[in-house]
């Protein structure tokens, strides 16, 4: 421990002696003395000692370790989400097997069938009773002195269908 007397006899501008700086940092009168000789030491007086964070070292360390645990758990969860190499290989093999299998089945179906099978395939099926589709007019008879009949011209020469529009103000709404 340096005394004030020793400090004042040993101190000189630009000193880096840890013992002198240590004294400087704990003694205001000597700091005042030194600052007049070497103003650079003025701010040096601030440093030199380790500080304790608010709440103390124990609480600080506890907070850090808690944060580290949280990070570690996050990393574990992330690594579970990412597939490992054997799993990736297994997935790749399954996909490849599906593609190859599907291609083989498809190619097999595209090959021409044997003759016997072809004959069987073209044998006509028994005729199903055909139902003749006819159109039935909704209005069978209609007479009106005010009606205007417009015939829509057919689009092609061979078309025998006639489309007729009947315009009549007095036509009942439910007709």
């Amino acid at each position, binding site marked *: 421990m340096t005394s004030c007397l020793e400090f004042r006899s040993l101190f000189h*501008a630009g000193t880096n002696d840890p013992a002198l700086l240590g004294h400087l940092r704990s003694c205001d009168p000597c700091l005042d003395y030194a600052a007049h000789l070497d103003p650079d030491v003025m701010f040096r007086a*601030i*440093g030199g000692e380790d500080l304790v964070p608010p709440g103390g070292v124990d609480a600080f360390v506890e907070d850090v*370790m808690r944060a*580290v645990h949280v990070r570690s758990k996050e990393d574990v969860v992330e690594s579970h989400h990412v597939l490992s190499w054997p799993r990736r290989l297994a997935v790749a093999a399954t996909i490849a097997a599906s593609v190859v299998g599907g291609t083989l089945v498809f190619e097999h179906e595209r090959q021409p069938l044997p003759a016997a099978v072809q004959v069987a395939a073209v044998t006509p099926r028994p005729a199903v009773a055909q139902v003749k589709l006819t159109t039935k007019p909704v209005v069978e008879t209609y007479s009106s002195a005010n009606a205007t009949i417009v015939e829509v011209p057919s689009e092609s020469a061979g078309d025998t269908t006639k489309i007729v529009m009947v315009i009549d103000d007095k036509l009942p709404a439910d007709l």
Partner: protein
Amino acid sequence: MAVELRLMIPTRQAEPDDRELVQTIREGDELAFEQLVRRKTSKVYALCYRIIGNAEDAKDISQLVFIKLWENLEKYDPTYAFDTWLYRMVTNVAIDFMRNKQSRENAVNSNLRLVKTEAEADQGVLVQRKEIEQVFEDVSACLSPKQKTIFVMNQMDDLPSSEIAKILGCRESTVRNHLFNARKSMQVQLQKRYPEYARLWSAGSVE
């Protein structure tokens, strides 16, 4: 008949050094990491506090440093001193924080400090450590985060410029330049806002 006598003296197991601790942590020992955090907390916090100048922010930044340390421990090369690597991490995180903070505040406080009158200044000044802390916080607001970091490491942590250059990954001449400019800027600020201390400083040999 020869008799061998063995003296059984209980010896206290020596504390592992930083490199050994890091090796143990890399092998998955979380308790070793806790030990390392406990060992370095005061140093890391002190450096953060002196750079940042605010206890709560310094605490948050220190915690962030240790979390980054945990995440990047694999990158540490044991051929270098652990403290140099740790200090580099501290300064990077603290400088980033200061830059963001400066861009937010844009040195709002720089002109709010009450300037002592010439008359008061003439009455002389007794340099007191407690007040110097406040003076430093005020006048160092004009420094860039890097300048302040270098000034703090050199003047308060007593690190030589060669060591600071290693920590910051720059040349020693760059560190000396930053120191010179930091002193110059602080002297101007001191003159403007604390003339009583500035008279003192200008009386001495400021480069």
